[in-house]
């Protein structure tokens, strides 16, 4: 019987877990055995007892969890975890292959690493798409944090003590996170505008009832992604966005290009032009950030404005984020499982791009 | 076949027409419509006129005078009715026409 291991995440602030009692139950339903490291789900609200109840074995050490045939993690192993890897085992995790310095070591360990950010964004792969499910949480969470910090109301209210104006929210990058941010901010009554460099984004933004900020710069890339702009275009873009940003109360920045540094869309000058109490949330801070001055994992104040840099927003909403992540992995594994074994011949369209290394060989970046 | 059966046929069909014609009238037009149908029922003047015209020459009998009175009543009705309708409808001019 194939055994699945779920080690605890060790990166600071990573509250999510790659398998929840719900997915463990589903794995057990596929006749697979699951070993969960003790405390792995605690920060996401999943107690060891919950896992045990649905049939998981609780193991006391990471080594035991890594000793399984199939290992599920949120994040690919850190340097101190490399030692646990066992040749021939399979690991599903977010690997950040573009920036991860450990890829060679993973390959050398002989494991097969499936990077969850690499499957193509096609309709059929949606159920396994952690980028979508986590970006969705991030977009939602960004607005929640901003609203809690913003010292005014989001909605328009006409009261006996005067009228409070609705907050003006600007969303930069209308991918999954951006769209969800638009919808959350609109729900709360803000006036929302959004910008993206992909042409298809316009209709999508408008389908959520927000206004699209038109700048005649387009950067359509491949597979639904944007591409990197050259510096002169970026300069033009920043100049065009400046008055929009200055007129906004809240900026949610989500613009990213896979594997590339995030575009610096909001200059320090633009931040300074915002009024007292404005809030900026930079979700791209992990890849360089969209907002000048944003600091990874920190909240800084600049000129009366608050800049929240959070590259791991989903971890703040770890309970639901874990449910979704775990379900994505389950869907991926289930699609490849035949009679209790993984068959990587299935779904070549998805498996191909996702495989980072296999049989000691590093495949990522080969094409 | 007597002539009245034909009249019955005409009558019956006219009832249908009257019924259908009125269905779906805008409530706001109820009063003008009533006023118009009132003017139209002034058509009874035709009866009065025919009756007057049917008397033999010479002195006018009582019946002619009665008919003339009827014509008078019906004429008031006709002129008054159409005019009043007109006035009421003037209130319903579409915007832009005012």
């Amino acid at each position: 019987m194939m055994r699945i291991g779920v080690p605890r995440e060790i990166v600071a602030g990573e509250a999510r877990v790659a398998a929840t009692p719900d997915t463990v139950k589903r794995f057990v339903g596929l006749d697979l055995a699951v070993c969960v490291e003790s405390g792995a789900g605690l920060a996401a609200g999943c107690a060891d007892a919950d896992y045990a109840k649905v049939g998981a074995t609780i193991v006391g050490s990471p080594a035991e969890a890594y000793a399984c045939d199939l290992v599920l993690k949120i994040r690919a192993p850190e340097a101190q975890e490399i030692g646990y890897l066992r040749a021939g085992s399979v690991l599903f995790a977010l690997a950040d292959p573009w920036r991860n310095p450990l890829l060679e070591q993973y390959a050398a360990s002989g494991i097969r690493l499936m990077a969850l950010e690499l499957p193509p964004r096609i309709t059929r792969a949606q159920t396994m798409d952690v980028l979508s499910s986590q970006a969705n949480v991030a977009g939602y969470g960004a607005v929640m944090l901003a609203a809690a910090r913003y010292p005014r109301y989001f909605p328009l209210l006409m009261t006996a003590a005067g009228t409070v104006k609705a907050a003006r929210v600007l969303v930069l990058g209308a991918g999954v996170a951006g769209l969800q941010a638009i919808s959350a901010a609109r729900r709360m009554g803000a006036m929302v505008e959004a910008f993206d460099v992909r042409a298809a984004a316009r209709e999508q933004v408008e389908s959520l009832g927000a206004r699209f900020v038109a700048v005649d710069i387009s950067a359509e890339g491949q597979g639904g992604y944007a591409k990197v702009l050259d510096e002169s275009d970026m300069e033009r873009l920043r100049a065009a966005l400046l008055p929009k940003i200055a007129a906004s109360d809240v900026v949610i920045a989500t613009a990213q290009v896979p594997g590339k540094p995030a575009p610096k869309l909001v200059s320090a000058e633009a931040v300074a032009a915002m009024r007292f109490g404005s809030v900026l949330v930079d979700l791209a801070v992990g890849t360089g950030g969209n907002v000048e001055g944003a600091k990874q994992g920190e909240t800084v104040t600049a000129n009366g404005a608050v800049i929240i840099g959070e590259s791991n927003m989903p971890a703040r909403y770890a309970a639901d984020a874990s449910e979704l992540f775990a379900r994505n992995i389950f869907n991926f594994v289930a699609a490849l499982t035949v009679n209790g074994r993984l068959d990587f011949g299935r779904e070549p369209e998805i498996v191909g791009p996702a495989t980072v290394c296999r049989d000691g060989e590093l495949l990522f970046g080969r094409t | 076949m007597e002539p009245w059966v034909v009249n019955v046929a005409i009558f019956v069909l006219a009832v249908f027409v009257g019924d259908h014609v009125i269905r779906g009238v805008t409530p706001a037009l109820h009063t003008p419509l009533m006023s118009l149908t009132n003017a139209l029922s002034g058509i009874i003047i035709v009866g009065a006129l025919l009756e007057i015209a049917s008397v033999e020459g010479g002195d006018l009998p009582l019946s002619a005078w009665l008919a003339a009175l009827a014509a008078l009543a019906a004429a008031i009705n006709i002129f008054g009715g159409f005019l009043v309708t007109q006035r009421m409808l003037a209130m319903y001019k579409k915007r832009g026409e005012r």
Partner: protein
Amino acid sequence: MPAAGSMAFLAYLGGAVLFILALKGLTTPATSRRGNWLGMIGMGVAVGTTLLVAQRPAWALLAVALAAGAVIGTGVARRVQMTQMPELVAAMHALVGLAAVLIAAAIVLRPHDAPTTAQRIELFLGAAIGAVTFSASVIAWAKLSAKLSGKPLAFAGQHWLNLLLALTVLGCGVTYWLTDSAPFFMAMVALATLLGILLIMPIGGADMPVVVSLLNSYSGWAAAGIGFSLDNPILIIAGACVGASGAILSMIMCRAMNRSLVSVLLGGFGAAQGEAATAAGASQRPVKSGSPEDALFLLKNAERVIVVPGYGLAVSRAQHALQEFAELLRAGGVDVKYAIHPVAGRMPGHMNVLLAEAEVPYDQVFEQEEINNDFAQTDVVIVLGANDVVNPAARNNPESPIYGMPILEAHRARTVIVVKRSMAAGYAGLDNDLFYLDKTMMVFGDAKKVIEEMVKNFH
């Protein structure tokens, strides 16, 4: 060439067709004025044809009768006030009834060509209906113009008396038919006149419009009856059309009042209605009330409309329907704005929350200070479940407990429509003068139901 008789027949037919088109025209505002013109032309054709075919017209008599009729008719019609229209229409019906009776009498009394047996039935019917129409219309006119009290006048056994009278009328008529005896005819006319009076007395003032419409129908039937006697197609067609359409119209009007024709005719109901309107405990002053269709008509034909939402809109959760409706209006070229009073609802910003739920764009929503000056230039204000915030007592009445509070000045608009369930007071427990203004129409009902009704009837 067809014979002269045939030509006349065809001309009459043409006149009748014009009448039909006229009635059809009156069903929609857009074609209504053309309809009236068609009616006039049809009348001209009919009278002209008659004069042409008349063998020995007593021209002088005719001219005098027509001219006098024209002068009196136009004179009255010109001078009458818009508010007196219903009474005028009632009076006119009396004239038609009278004319029918007179013509029938003329035929009965004429020295030549005594009527045939078949004609006698028709004469009897025409005269009887004409007489009832006449006397009933006179009473209706008197009630409407307050010459008589609008109160229903009921006494025990009245329905039995009426039945008896009607049977006697029938008896006289049948006797006349069988014997050709003029006195019986006259008796019949007299009794029918009495019957008309008795029939109308027990009906209350509020129901008069229905009754007038019904009398309208009667006058049509009377004309048709005379048409039978004279073998004249236009009388038959026009009479039948008027008769049928009047009857249907009465039914439509009853339905709009949520009443049955029978209950109207049996009388005594008008009083009950008056009570219902004030049952909610507010003052006894009269208000004008209308149906959602009436409100819709006013709103569609307005250029500028302001919507005043209040707590009642929230209670009925009507915001989505309202937004949908406003959008329909706007698509029809009407300028629609929302006016928000700062204390409308039950929490600060209640109305904003409500409208935001329905995604009313913020730029259509105005606060009191921004919009108060616009009311005077507004065609129609529709107040939806608001009360205190549009109470003019706050401005005008220093005695009022809300005196001094700035309100939305809905009362300054040309027309005001107020949608609420009853005459009940709002949070502050005050009666509201706005509801009693001449330019105010109350539409009673749950705000959501009323709006949905309007949406459904939007064409």
